């Protein structure tokens, strides 16, 4: 790890990635790990809450279309629970219709990002911005 990494706002932060696509999860985790983040992964609601309750997560990256859960439902639950409601959530999905974006922001997501439109560097910057 480069020394300069220690100056970025991602360094040392705990990031929970909720994503069912193993390949995308691996790539995103690799990028954020290189920047010094600590990565946790979940594919379903139980696992997600288990991690959120156990670890002091700094930001959640949440997909919407997951086989075993609805991302919007998960976001709603995070924001309703007093112990997790202040954790910032970034929706990272390939959905992008107006009603999806409106719904995500209304439910309390900090950002709604369409995966394919971001390079790895730009995506890391989006996380860094939230973690400043």
């Amino acid at each position, binding site marked *: 790890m480069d020394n300069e990494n220690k100056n970025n706002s991602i360094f040392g932060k705990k990031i929970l990635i909720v994503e069912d696509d193993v390949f995308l999860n691996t790539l995103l985790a690799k990028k954020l790990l290189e920047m010094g983040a600590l990565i946790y992964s979940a594919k379903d609601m139980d696992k997600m809450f288990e991690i959120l309750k156990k670890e002091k997560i700094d930001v959640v990256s949440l997909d919407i279309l997951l086989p075993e859960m609805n991302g919007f439902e998960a976001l709603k639950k995070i924001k309703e629970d007093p112990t997790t409601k202040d954790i910032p959530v970034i929706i990272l999905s*390939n959905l992008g219709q*107006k009603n999806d974006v409106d719904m995500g922001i209304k439910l309390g997501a900090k950002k709604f990002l369409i995966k394919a439109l971001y390079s790895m560097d730009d995506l890391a910057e989006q996380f860094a911005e939230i973690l400043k």
Partner: protein
Amino acid sequence: MEDNNLKTKVQEPGFTKSTFLTTVAHQLRNLLAGARWSIEIATKDKDCPNKEILTEGLNKIVHSIDIVGEILKLSNNDLVGEEIELKKDNFILNDLVKKIISNLNFLIQEKGTTITCEEKGSFEINGDEKMLGMVLTNVFDNALRYSPKGKVFISLEKEDSFVKITVKDTGIGISSSDLEHIFQKFFRGENAKEIDPNETGVGLYTTKKIVEMFGGKIAISSVLNKGTTVEISLPLLANKV
């Protein structure tokens, strides 16, 4: 696996063309994001072999992602991805043009076409640089694609309060009957299909829309088997006129 999933969805009651497009776009974007990110990570390594080829592949993937976005926009799917939030920045057109030509290097070599660019001044304009980049990439790409072993001349010049971008090629040209339909959605000239059957035909339709968003104009003239000239006029920054 993904295809079966799609097949099931198509058979569901209430499945419309719009939901079909959204589903296809979602699946394509997942695959393309994986391809994009993996190449980005691989090429970050300074010892990465074949870096140049991989970078060209990455450009193709990003282009494909843009096309998925274009198709969704054209289907009036009400998409509000960040790609259609129009930005208003001042930028130098000349720099953008040079960058696009350099990105098309692979196609230039593949087609054996020569490309020259004459800049009759430096031109500053206001608008969404990324959007205009898509437009000009499309126009330059068309000129190169349909002028194998030919020549493409690009010029930038001032015309009243506008900058005129002329892209002239010595390619296959467009018949007068096809020329009438050239800005229609999904339209492709008969001879263009023969050269490159895989293109979508959404490019010029989008190009015209975006040029108009800039407050500009686009005109195409062509002679079959001789070549095509595309002229795009965009307003110059008020204090630069």
